[in-house]
């Protein structure tokens, strides 16, 4: 399918100019973008030429920037008079996150609902408020991508402030969605040109979507045996939850130092045996099957019931990093079959 | 993010290390007592934990101590053949040697982790050993504390 349009007027920025623009942004904001070491991850940029643009999906999702693996909640100091509690000082400087994919942008909007709402988690919300998102569309895809299942358009900048599309030699500025986005564009005015280009807008081919509507809401119909059998190869490690852009379960731990200490919150994974174990020794999810079931229910049943959105965005990270190659798509397909039975 | 914690004795301007000592109840703990009773000069930079046998010290204890920022960990036990439980210290010897090598490999100087034999009657040896070992740690300087 060639939907290459000829001679369409578009705002574009060349690759070289993009670096200059980002350099300029870096002068005003803290810039975060994908960097490659053994894996590609979002990191703070010291030098613009370190930014990795030939990535598909980062190893860790962008949630690390808003809900880090380990985050200080507060510190306390003890003296003869008592205890004083001091909230962790979060970032004040505004940040720009460059290179977020549409699936991850959706994931952030899901996390917004979790950490926002009636009771606001200020640690997350403040970081979120202070960050401008520059998205990049997916003109290519991995064979693990299945975002279209959840109605995500790999070429739409929903949830981002600015949305670019990589056209090889240059980037098209497809969307500028917010005031904050516009002010960033203003910074790059000298680099952004309006030109007639042979406009190419092709989404990467994504796996055939799964009929998710038939699954959510019907999860109860799945027999118990199914979970025990499906979870058999699972090692109960934390990879799938840690690399998941929407997983948000956390643990709270104190670290005592001399005359004070710090309380941290850390990521936690529900596949861990002691995730739900109480002090009394009672464990409501003692078997691997029950924990596995809980993970799927959280994403495809509890999320829709509570926030009216599925807690999965089809980024495919859990598929690519699973040490035993368990495939969430395959499991969903089997759940669907099981429901229909 | 490596932080170097400055622990300097105000009086002597000398680095005062944080050291943990595991001492066997039947020998070196008594030796420490003896050293004290005999009013021998012993450096004061260490904290001592009494264990029932040097083999009681699980390697995790040592690794944990290092993770909590200790500059040195010493185990003191009975001389070979004199273990109260007949052979505990032989096991310790193996474990310690292997752990020393592993620590070194992971970037923690093996000199920071030491094993010595001190019997109950060797108060002077205790004082001398501690002095020498702590001097060794002073020479190494503070450990890079992981944050």
């Amino acid at each position, binding site marked *: 399918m060639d939907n290459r349009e000829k001679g369409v007027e578009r705002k574009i920025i060349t690759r070289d100019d993009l670096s200059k623009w980002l350099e300029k942004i870096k002068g005003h904001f803290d810039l975060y973008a994908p960097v490659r070491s053994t894996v590609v991850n979002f990191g703070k940029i010291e030098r613009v030429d370190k930014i990795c643009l030939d990535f598909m999906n980062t190893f860790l999702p962008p949630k690390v920037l808003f809900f880090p693996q380990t985050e200080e909640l507060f510190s306390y100091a003890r003296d003869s008079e008592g205890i004083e509690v001091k909230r962790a000082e979060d970032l004040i400087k505004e940040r720009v996150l460059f290179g977020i994919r549409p699936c991850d942008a959706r994931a952030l909007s899901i996390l917004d609902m979790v950490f926002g709402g009636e009771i606001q988690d200020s640690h997350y919300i403040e970081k979120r408020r202070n960050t401008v998102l520059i998205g990049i569309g997916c003109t290519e895809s991995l064979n693990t991508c299945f975002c279209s299942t959840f109605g995500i358009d790999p070429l739409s900048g929903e949830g981002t402030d600015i949305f670019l599309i990589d056209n090889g030699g240059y980037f098209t500025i497809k969307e500028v969605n917010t005031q904050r986005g516009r002010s960033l564009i203003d910074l790059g005015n000298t680099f952004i040109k309006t030109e007639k280009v042979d406009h190419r807008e092709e989404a990467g081919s994504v796996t055939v979507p799964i009929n998710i509507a038939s699954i959510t809401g019907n999860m*109860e119909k799945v027999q118990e045996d199914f979970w025990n059998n499906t979870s058999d190869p699972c090692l109960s490690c934390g990879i799938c939850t840690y690399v998941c852009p929407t997983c948000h379960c956390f643990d709270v731990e104190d670290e005592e130092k001399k005359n004070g200490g710090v309380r941290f919150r850390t990521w936690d994974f529900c596949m861990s045996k002691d995730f739900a174990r109480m*002090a009394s020794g009672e464990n409501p999810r003692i078997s691997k099957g029950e924990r596995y079931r809980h993970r799927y229910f959280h994403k495809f049943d509890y999320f829709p019931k509570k926030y009216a959105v599925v807690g999965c965005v089809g980024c495919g990270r859990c598929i690519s990093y699973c040490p035993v190659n368990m495939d969430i798509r395959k499991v969903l397909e089997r759940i669907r079959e099981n429901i229909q039975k | 993010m490596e932080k170097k914690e400055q622990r300097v004795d105000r009086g002597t301007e000398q680095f005062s290390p944080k050291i943990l000592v595991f001492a066997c109840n039947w020998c070196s703990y008594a030796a420490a007592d003896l050293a004290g009773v005999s009013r021998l000069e012993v450096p004061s930079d260490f904290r001592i934990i009494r264990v029932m046998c040097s083999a009681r010290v699980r390697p995790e204890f040592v690794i944990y101590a290092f993770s909590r920022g200790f500059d040195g960990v010493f185990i003191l036990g009975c001389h070979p053949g004199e273990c109260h439980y007949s052979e505990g210290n032989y096991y310790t010897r193996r474990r310690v040697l292997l752990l020393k090598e592993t620590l070194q490999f992971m970037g923690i100087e093996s000199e920071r982790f030491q094993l010595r034999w001190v019997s109950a009657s060797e108060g002077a040896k205790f004082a001398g050993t501690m002095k020498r070992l702590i001097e060794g740690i002073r020479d190494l300087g503070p450990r890079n504390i992981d944050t």
Partner: protein
Amino acid sequence: MNNSIYLPHIATIKNVVEETFDTSTFTVAFDNKNIQSSFSYLPGQFVEVTVFGKGECPISITSTPVKNEYLELCVRSSGKVTDALHDLDVGGKIGIRGPYGNSFPLEEVRGKDIILISGGIGLAPLRSLLNYFLYNEDRYGKIELFYGAKTSQDLCFRREYDLWGAHENTAVHITVDKATEQWNGRVGFVTELLKEAAPSPRNRFAFVCGPPIMIKITAKILAEMGYEDSRIITTLERKMKCGVGKCMRCSIGEKLVCQDGPVFSLRELNEITDEFSR
């Protein structure tokens, strides 16, 4: 920026009463008088108690919100935080945030007869409720407490049974699983006690709190007696961290114990498709 929901307020332990060998009731008050006077809660709610350096755990409030000068927390030493709490003496500083969770349906049961069934430390949240009922005696009908513990040494709030029983329209039935020499009361499980008394389900609500297995058995017995699911009310325990519905640790089905609970009617629990109903 001191607006984090995770910040505890400093409170001081004012008094400690030993209930059993591993359970004590702590009377605590916030250091900040304004927080203390504005701290309002209802029976059934809980607070997150911080022992600094050890961590945080959810504890149900056992005092009744008629006096705002202090809070009472009945705690069994069963983990890192609760052990550390027991090590603290009068004057010790702890952190408290809350109150969290829903409360017992106080309005719904107005004018009704009530039975309270509890085992062991499960009396703690029910004590708050019982005292609330007794304080507002005119609004409620006959109140009966069925309480059981392993031995007479494991009974909590021993000093208060007579006080409760002295009220008109109130009955207190105590039983122990295993008799010791000092005990001359009833011996047997609380469920047997309940079966014998067989309070009629007419115009009556049942509140159950205790170990999970006891809740399950009691709920079954009550159902056999003819109690409707919606009239059997229980309060649950789950591992909890945040208390405000973010950490997802306390979920039973799509419900979160910290927000949608800890008080649930059996009907609500039966609707949840999770471990509990299985």
